[in-house]
């Protein structure tokens, strides 16, 4: 039976779990450290000891991390990037990074280059690639010591040739320069795709260091197995892919906790509430995967078109402060947050929190119950009712059908969840507190296609079948077992006004990781 180690490196906690097959052997929580590495080492040692397994026996390690999202949000550790767009004479009105916050543009150097090139929607060239200009830019990159380049061509999701040629020319003149192509990262929508490519390029040396640190933490702990990192849609990337595409880990945190919830309960259609210290994230599962957001998602103030789970947050967590009395109760939105072990009444502190209510109500056993014995029962009932109402409203917003699907409560604060929310049953799996590390441990491998097809001379069904074949091939070559592949997204959007019945097909398949990788 395969032994998997799942690690979640969050902003506050580093969690680790060990799974044998589908069984969770042990899960631990420990503090994230400044150097990341020692936090992983601590969690690792603790979980190995608790599970009682030999480190040599671990077959594969999966890591989930918010490290790269945080780097962008906190503007830390980003490199300068040459942002090169192939599209002139089109696109000149909105240069690269036009909608970025000024401080982030400064962090990455504000090196914008527009040159002739790019494609029309039907694959014609807008203009031939301006190779002389590219060579001049290469000289400037060397001269200014710019660390990486991001190349974005108009309609590169339809034809990637020009981006590839531009990369070859750049690297010929700047040997060893890391170059990110927008077609490798994003979908149609030039600004969003280009921004993702630039952010990715700016994260490359951080991802080098981080992936290196992950590897070193594991090998110093005596783990020789391969390791993978989870991306925002709950699927895996090999270490080498993360090194090249760190942006694909954005938002993997909520995804992992939702996937973990699905795994721990065996339920594939559900609403997941992840109750932390300060907030509750609510999202819904479909086929065991988080439902994706409809609208464009901001990362650190930059508009992106990453696949991200449709999650929203309410200000309710285990550390949420309660003020007022039974008749006039105020829950949150302030929270004592990570200071819960000092501030809450049950831990000898002075602040009434939701955790104290849960203990007083007999819903949880943490800290010293005697310290909350004096709380007025009417206040407890009022608080319980209000918490239940807040959760019910949040759950109703995520609900997609009147069918009575269950609610899965995970996260350290899920002691607050009642046994039923509205007419829905609440499941509280064992190991609920480390659901995100479990989600990392069970992540799958995917393959994806997103392209415009001309239906003239063919059929929609044929195009979908082609897309599925291509996505499946991509998944298999990334390490998925062919017999486990299933389609999780299939969408075709006809393009208005375009001749030849053009349609945009977005298709994604996922599968279990193959044995050769485990």
């Amino acid at each position, binding site marked *: 039976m395969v032994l998997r180690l799942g690690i979640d490196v969050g902003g506050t906690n580093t969690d680790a779990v060990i799974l044998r097959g589908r069984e969770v052997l042990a899960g631990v929580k420990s503090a994230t450290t400044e150097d990341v590495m020692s936090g992983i080492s601590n969690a690792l040692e603790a979980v190995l000891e608790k599970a009682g397994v030999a480190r040599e026996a671990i077959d594969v390690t999966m890591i989930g991390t918010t490290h790269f999202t945080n780097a962008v949000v906190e503007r830390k550790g980003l490199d300068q990037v040459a942002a090169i767009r192939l599209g002139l004479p089109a696109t000149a009105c909105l240069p690269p990074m036009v909608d970025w916050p000024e401080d982030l543009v400064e962090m990455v150097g504000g090196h914008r280059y527009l040159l002739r090139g790019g494609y029309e929607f039907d694959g014609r060239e807008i203009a031939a690639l301006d190779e002389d200009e590219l060579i001049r830019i290469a000289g400037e990159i060397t001269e200014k010591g710019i660390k990486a380049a991001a190349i974005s061509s108009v309609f590169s999701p339809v034809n990637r040739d020009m981006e590839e040629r531009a990369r070859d020319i750049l690297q010929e003149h700047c040997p060893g320069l890391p170059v990110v192509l927008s077609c490798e990262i994003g979908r149609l929508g030039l600004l969003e795709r280009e921004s993702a490519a630039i952010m990715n390029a700016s994260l490359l040396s951080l991802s080098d260091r981080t992936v290196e640190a992950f590897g070193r933490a594991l090998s110093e702990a005596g783990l020789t197995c391969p390791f993978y990192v989870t991306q925002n849609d709950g699927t895996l990337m090999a270490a080498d892919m993360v090194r090249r595409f760190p942006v694909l880990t954005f938002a993997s945190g909520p995804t992992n906790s939702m996937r973990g919830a699905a795994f721990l309960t065996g339920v594939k259609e559900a609403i997941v509430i992840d109750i932390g210290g300060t907030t509750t994230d609510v999202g819904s599962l479909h086929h065991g995967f988080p439902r994706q957001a409809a609208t464009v998602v901001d990362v650190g103030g930059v*508009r992106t078109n990453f696949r991200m789970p449709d999650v929203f947050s309410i200000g309710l967590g285990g550390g949420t402060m309660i003020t007022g009395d039974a008749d006039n109760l105020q829950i949150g939105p302030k929270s004592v947050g990570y200071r819960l072990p000092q501030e809450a009444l049950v831990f000898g502190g002075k602040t009434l929190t939701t955790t104290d209510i849960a203990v007083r109500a007999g819903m949880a056993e943490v800290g010293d119950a005697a310290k909350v014995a004096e709380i007025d029962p009417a206040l407890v009932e009022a608080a319980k009712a209000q918490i239940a109402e807040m959760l019910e409203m949040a759950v109703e917003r995520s609900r997609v059908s009147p069918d009575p699907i269950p609610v899965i409560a995970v996260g350290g604060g899920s002691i607050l969840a009642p046994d039923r929310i509205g007419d829905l049953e609440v499941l509280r799996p064992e190991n609920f507190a480390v659901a995100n590390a479990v989600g990392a441990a069970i992540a799958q491998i995917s393959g994806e296609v997103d392209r415009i097809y001309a239906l003239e001379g063919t059929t929609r069904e044929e195009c979908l079948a082609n897309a599925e074949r291509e996505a499946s091939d991509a998944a298999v070559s990334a390490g998925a077992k062919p017999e486990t592949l299933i389609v999780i997204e299939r969408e075709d959007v*006809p393009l*208005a006004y375009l001749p030849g019945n053009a349609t945009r097909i977005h298709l994604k398949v996922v599968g279990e990781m193959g044995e050769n990788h485990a």
Partner: protein
Amino acid sequence: MGFTVSSADMEAIALGGAFLGTGGGGDPYIGKLMAQAALDAHGPVTVTDVAEVPDDAVCVPVCMMGAPTVMVEKLPNGEEAAAALTALEAYLGTKVDYLICIEAGGLNSTIPFAVAAATGLPLLNGDGMGRAFPELQMVSFTLHDIKASPMALADDKGNTSILNAISNQWTERLARAQTVEMGGAALVALYPMNGAQAKQGLLRGTLGLIRELGESIAAERQANRHPGDALIRRCGGMQLCTARVVDIERHTTGGFARGRAVLKGLDEDQGRSFTLDFQNEFLCLEDGEGQPMALTPDLICALDADGGLPVTTEKLHYGLGLRLIGLPADPQWRSAGGLDLVGPGYFGYSHAFAPLETLNPTNTNT
């Protein structure tokens, strides 16, 4: 009364434009960025009340024509609109005095601000649709016998052309073919008219309206309220339903993104079902028994049931919660001539038009 618009106002204008876009017209985001860049570079734009315009002034609408999906990928060069205007001026042998917004919904609600800022020309407070529609002849100007041509088209490469056609429908056909050759999108200047014609044909006040609607959406969201109620109050509209997409079917015929979404009621509409038909824009809403609840040209505006932001047809997906709001179309659209141009029959729906107030006598205008 006129007003001025600066870069800071574009956020609200784009939001309000997306709302009146009734699901179509493309995402105004790109147009907003273009307008902001132009307003930052050249200073604010004056929006003039059409009553103040001399009868012999030359007024010309400018807009983007083509597939919104192309526009999010192949961004404009930025010089196209000026090139189209210059070409039209040269053909007409006269300078343009005022710019007009042709479509106060979607992408084209924001583009004219970019052109106005760059050219320094004032913009009239109003538009030709009061919403979004897919074809060039679907403007109130057609109802007043204002001709779409001569029309100028310009692309990113510097190509321009002038079209002269025998009817506004023919202008649409010929221009459509050219935009495809130009790479699926072009900037155009058309419907040249004088001030007297503009006074007759313009749907007045709509630019001020979308700014106000956008400000209202932002303010309500800021206050953690769904903006639906405030928008209904402001526009004299009505709540149609709150429902979730449970099925969506799309197909392309005649060059349009047609489709139908099946919705299941939420909240007070729990247990009901609805079907929402669209052809670029939302055009027909029926209840579970197939009875119409709202029909084009009345506006069917969709907001995300959770976040309260406007939703375009291309963003519709399984599971998305919508709050649908009906707004009465401008009286010009509800006239016999208006209905010929943009009524349910033109789009191939079998329902005869009836105003949404008649279709939903019990829905209160709250």
